[in-house]
């Protein structure tokens, strides 16, 4: 499947270039001019998002479903989810540096996935057996991972700002960080949004698992464990038992665990087609 003669991977490469350009320009502006070109970064991230959306649509048409059938697609979809949320949050909350860090995360996720050919060597055509609910379950789960990716960024920024204020190091990168209050607020909202999305996803999944209990394997339990941990973190935060730096560290640790769980979850699914990329997925 191509658009303007270019295949899905080419569009995804172009998207990565946009994210990477946003990252490079942001870094140069911070180092050279000691300012943060928020609008420029937002523009590059938005352009990357459009190109990535196009690439994922082409891939989705090629695999006849949501393009989350292999590790490459999972990383791409997670980055896309984080970016789509940033475009809303960044415009609404105008959080300094969030765009810079988001372009950094997206550049890393997309470039790593593009640079690892093995991740995209095999494809699952119609990976969800034509069951739209299962596809929705998987897409929602990955979208919630995108939310948790953004949460991890906000948590990292919270820790940096706390370090800066505690150690009285206020210049350089630290001077652009949002306030502790804003970072805490956005973290709680992202945590709640992620938990709601993942609960929705697991709810749909559970409906199918209950009909086939034998299909409940370790990777599925791992995913449920990630959800449970995030839910617990949210409840503890709402109950004011898990706050400030401890909440931030928890969010970072949980996202690392969530990322690590993606490999086993992906490997446990239906066998992949051994014949390489789907038809016309290359430029």
């Amino acid at each position, binding site marked *: 499947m191509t658009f303007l003669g270019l295949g899905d991977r080419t569009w995804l490469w172009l998207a990565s270039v946009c994210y990477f350009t946003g990252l490079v320009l942001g870094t140069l502006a911070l180092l050279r001019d000691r300012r943060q070109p928020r609008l420029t970064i937002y523009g590059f991230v938005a352009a990357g998002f459009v190109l990535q959306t196009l690439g994922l649509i082409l891939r989705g048409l090629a695999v006849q479903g949501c393009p989350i059938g292999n590790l490459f697609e999972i990383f791409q979809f997670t980055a896309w989810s984080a970016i789509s949320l940033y475009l809303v949050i960044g415009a609404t909350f105008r959080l300094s540096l969030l765009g810079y860090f988001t372009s950094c995360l997206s550049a890393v996720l997309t470039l790593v996935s593009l640079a690892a050919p093995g991740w995209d060597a095999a494809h699952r055509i119609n990976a969800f057996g034509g069951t739209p609910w299962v596809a929705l379950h998987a897409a929602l789960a990955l979208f919630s991972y995108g939310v948790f990716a953004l949460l991890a960024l906000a948590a990292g920024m919270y820790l940096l700002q706390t370090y800066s*204020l505690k150690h*009285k190091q206020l*210049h350089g990168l630290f*001077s652009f960080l949002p*306030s502790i209050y804003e970072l805490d607020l956005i973290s709680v909202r992202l945590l709640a949004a992620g938990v709601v999305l993942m609960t929705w996803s697991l709810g749909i999944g559970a409906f199918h698992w209950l009909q086939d209990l034998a299909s409940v394997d370790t990777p599925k339990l791992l995913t449920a464990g990630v959800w449970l941990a995030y839910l617990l973190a949210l409840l503890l935060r709402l109950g*004011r038992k898990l*706050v*400030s*730096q401890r909440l931030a560290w928890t969010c970072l640790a949980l996202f690392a665990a969530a990322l690590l769980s993606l490999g086993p979850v992906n490997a446990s699914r239906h066998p992949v087609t051994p014949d390489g990329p789907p038809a016309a997925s290359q430029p």
Partner: protein
Amino acid sequence: MSAATLFLLGASHQTAPLELREKLALAGGKLDALHGELQSLAGLEEFAVLNTCNRVEIYGVATQTEAVARLQAALCALNQMDARVFEQIRLELHDLPAIQHLLEVAAGIDSQMVGETEILGQVKDAYAAAQTRGTTGPVLNRVFQKTFQAAKHVRTHTAIGEGQISVASVAVDLALKIFGDLRRCRVLVLGAGDIGEKTARAFKSREAGEMAVTSRHLEHAEALAGAFAARAIPFDQVAGALPDYDIVVCSLAAPGAVVTRAMAALAMRRRATRSLFFIDLALPRNIDPDVAALPNVFLYNLDDLAKIAEENLALRQAEMERVRALLAEKAGALWQQIEPRMGGNHTEG
């Protein structure tokens, strides 16, 4: 004179001590009187007067050599200042250097507090006043409009205005880094001393939320509270009130710690998710330094704030050469536009 000249005549804190600046200041009706006199001065085509506590500078366009001397005589006569005294403090620049000077003034690099922003507003006011009186023309209009653009450019593209350089403003800046918006913050001022009052005033000017003042002498607290529309609370109620406040400014003259780690820890248990910012301006310190180890609690003492202010000032000063070079470029470009309108040959420098 074969051609017109763009000039600056005046004195500033760079050339004149306070006593002479006081004498030269155009207070009361003097400014109006000067305007009236200059409007009828032969050979003076355009002018604008910048009159602040640190400078009296007249920017103008003269078509006769004697016009600047006549202006000087009028200024001295108005202020009853001996012309010889004025000549010792006089700053007189022509053409490109005059433009460069105005750009540096507007950008804040000629100010006593390098990088301050108030001066740009004052330059704008001076220009607006001159426009209203009809004393500006094509040359000064262009020069001032380009000056505002240049000042904005250097503020955006350099660190000349970055960071606060007074202890009170640094404290406010830190509070913004913690709470984002001070309108939802409650401020408790411990002690009614001078530095505490200045800091409280800085918070009030940034629209901080509810404020309360306490002192070992309630009448002192009430006096200060009255000045800020704050409420005074008895000193023995500090521990109980602590959890209700986000920012605590302490400038008591107490011999030891008034806020202990145990008090702060107890307050944080009740505050849970909200940060607590302590500003200890007292000497000896009145807030136990161990308070800083508590999660979500931030403690800054007088030395910390002074150090940040010094660092910010150093950062601004380090930017001065860069700003000056940027402004020189802009002044050069502007002079190239202006020079043909002046007629005749001018030398730069």
